[in-house]
């Protein structure tokens, strides 16, 4: 079986011959190769060169998530119809090293008015019975085909790159409603916060530390340029989980919440080069809880300190900003994302109309 280089789209085939080409791909195989698939993973992008870039991403994602990948590159601007398709396979050795496990990829380039055919193209090449995960890499257009949502099980996107958070979130939620709430919304910007959320949450695992929730005075979050939306989502999560109500909407990086006892919690968001989320400091009346990227880059240093308590930093894993890592992590997670949706609601309340872009 000819196994394509990671960057190559593989063998070009007529769209009507995809099934036959895939069959041939496997029948020509030599040695022990197993086709594996747990999900249909469709990746959609309108950015030039996305097919090659996404092929590279899929080859890495497939190392830990066997899937049928449908990589779709779209050019709406073209006036002429053009549909081109390729098939290839990404193989890896099993941990035992005895045989190769392969994920198959079908790539589509759609140009011109035929982009409307997207749902029919996707639907006709799904691995039956397996869930469909759609990774949408661009802003969502206003007019979306409701048919598409009827088939999607998990919609993956990254709100960090959105031009307008409120508008985009409305479109995503419309899609979710059209699918009768069946779609699980998966924001990679939320996944980006996983490790920081772990690091913050662990401070409060013991019930003896819960009194600090009621004594919280301020939260400071440093974020890298372009990641203000990530920082706001983090603050939205804290507010949603700790029942803080918006008192002052976000303005120039500052905002304020009120807790259940109407005590103020001041929030400071500061742009600073470095990791997407840099230092995070939560101050209660008596203790300062810090989460900061460690010097080595892929670890977090966590510590708590107070008047009678010296800081004893500990290391915890940090989140990388690599899209493959984010996707791999997201694909490992099952179930709905209720906590994310609550955080999004808080973000909505937090963003003043002026700063609705979240950036």
């Amino acid at each position: 079986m000819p196994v394509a280089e990671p960057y190559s789209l593989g063998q070009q085939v007529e769209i009507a011959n995809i099934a036959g080409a895939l069959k041939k791909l496997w029948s020509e195989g030599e040695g022990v190769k197993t086709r594996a698939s747990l999900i249909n993973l469709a990746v959609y992008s309108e950015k030039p060169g996305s097919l090659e870039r996404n092929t590279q991403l899929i080859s890495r994602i497939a190392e830990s998530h066997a899937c049928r990948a449908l990589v779709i590159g779209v050019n709406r601007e073209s006036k002429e119809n053009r549909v081109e398709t390729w098939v290839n396979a990404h193989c890896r050795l099993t941990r035992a090293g005895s045989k190769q496990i392969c994920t198959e990829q079908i790539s589509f380039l759609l140009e011109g008015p035929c982009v409307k055919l997207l749902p029919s193209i996707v639907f006709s090449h799904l691995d039956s019975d397996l869930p469909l995960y759609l990774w949408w890499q661009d802003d969502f257009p206003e007019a979306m085909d409701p048919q598409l949502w009827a088939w999607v099980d998990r919609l993956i996107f990254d709100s960090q790159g959105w031009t307008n958070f409120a508008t985009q979130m409305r479109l995503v939620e419309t899609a979710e409603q059209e699918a009768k709430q069946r779609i699980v919304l998966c924001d990679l910007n939320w996944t980006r916060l996983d490790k920081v959320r772990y690091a913050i949450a662990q401070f409060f695992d013991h019930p003896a530390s819960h009194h600090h929730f009621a004594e919280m005075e301020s939260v400071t979050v440093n974020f890298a340029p372009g990641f203000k939306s990530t920082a706001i989502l983090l603050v939205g999560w804290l507010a949603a989980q700790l029942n803080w109500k918006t008192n002052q909407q976000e303005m120039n990086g500052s905002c304020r919440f009120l807790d259940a006892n109407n005590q103020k919690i001041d929030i400071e968001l500061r742009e600073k080069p470095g990791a997407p989320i840099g230092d995070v400091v939560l101050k209660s009346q008596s203790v300062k809880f810090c989460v900061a990227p460690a010097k080595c880059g892929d670890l977090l240093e966590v510590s708590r300190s107070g008047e009678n308590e010296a800081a004893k930093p500990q290391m915890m894993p940090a989140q990388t900003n690599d899209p493959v890592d984010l996707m791999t992590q997201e694909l490992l997670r099952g179930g709905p994302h209720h906590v994310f949706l609550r955080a999004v609601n808080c973000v909505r309340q937090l963003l003043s109309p002026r700063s609705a872009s979240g950036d």
Partner: protein
Amino acid sequence: MNRAGEQTEVNPLREGLSTRAVPQPCSVVIFGATGDLTHRKLMPALYNLGADGELPPAVTVIGFARRPKTDDDFRKEMEDAVKKFSRQTVRDEIWKNFAQSIFYHQSDFSDEAGFKSLAQRLEKIDKERGTRGNRLFYFAVGPDQFEPILKHLKGAGLNKEAEGSWARVIIEKPFGSDLKSARELNRVISNSFSEEQTYRIDHFLGKETAQNILVLRFANAIFEPLWNTRYIDHLQITAAETLGVEGRAGYYEGAGALRDMVQNHLLQLLCLVAMEAPSDLRADSIRDEKVKVVRCLRRMTQEEVATNVVRAQYTDGAINGKPVPAYRKEEKVDPKSMTDTFVALKLNVDNWRWWDVPIYMRVGKRLPKSATEISVHFKKAPMVLFSKETNEANVLVIRIQPDEGISLRMEAKMPGTSFRIEPVKMDFHYGTSFGKASPEAYERLLLDAMSGDATLFARRDEVEEAWAFIDIIENAWSAKKKTPELYLYPAGSWGPEQADELLARDGRSWRRL
């Protein structure tokens, strides 16, 4: 299997981050800290948990052993062990940090003063590191050491749980060598720790596939309706290993395959396969159902033991083309040893579900390959339409190790104009479908113990019921009259022919592995 819902005060920031109960900060005291288990399993497991961010930062490890050494000596020793045995590469930044949480406490297990000073040290650690009075005592020592350690832990007040904190003890097998000694051991443990504080570890239950048995059975509607005497012909459970005694002759000589493997691992697997659906996933709900299975195991007479149990011992042979010596020629083994290195059994679970469904088990050392699996052999379909010669039964196989997964054998028509039927296999491999490596069993079990989830640990009554069943066989083997024979099998074979006959006389055969 998680107790998150049982916690009185839940951390709201944990919601959605973890579906399991969160481990609490604690001091983990390992008795036998310089031993093989600590080097190979415990410390690598603790490091991996720390590196993955699963351990609360305050968790502190105290190695307790006789040999004099400093904290730094012990840390260096553990660093070498973790580098050698960890499933992930050891990173200096993480190790440096993790090493700060490791301490060494030198004392003899019989020295009361050593335990008093341990208590003082733990109190200091509580204050300095925020372990909040929570203590997990891990007994990585032989059972002969249990009693003095337990006695002195109690003497030093370390068995007591202060308000809002806990003290737990993890006991490694063997949990006794017969019912009497198991009861005595449980009595000794219960003098110092309550049953709720006691965690009897069976690492088989920490394996992903063992836990998946409940999911397979109770989360899939297609299997459970067939999971009974009406549709199942018989069950087979095999635990085969190519290894010999590997330096464990001192223990193994007194134990043998029946005590070493069947009493715990294999009966635990049988319980998971044969139990009724629990009312919920709480530890005791699951263990209540498991113990019922052991209670329903049909007790055998001495004659029935001779008929239904085959014991054997390996002689000279070869594994993977390499000659290996007979068991009796192994170091520290009695040249006239009568220890069983292979056991095959035919069991019956006398309840409604399993009436008249024989369960065949085999376990052995120096077998041709290492594999642990459960196979469910369904009854044959009525062959009214097709040739009787081609009629194979459906078999569902749950592979515990290696190559964890599930496969289903079914009949299919061969391509062609004639009507030929051949068995085909639908196969699910964990390693193929999920690229992510499963955590080591000890990692899962240590986390469970730290979070107070005893689901995957054996309860006192399970252990005692299992011994009550095993004792009947052991007693028959040691009887002076009509003693069942100890057969011999060459290393590298699948056991003595009598093991094959055990099934052949019922018109069945062992599944080929």
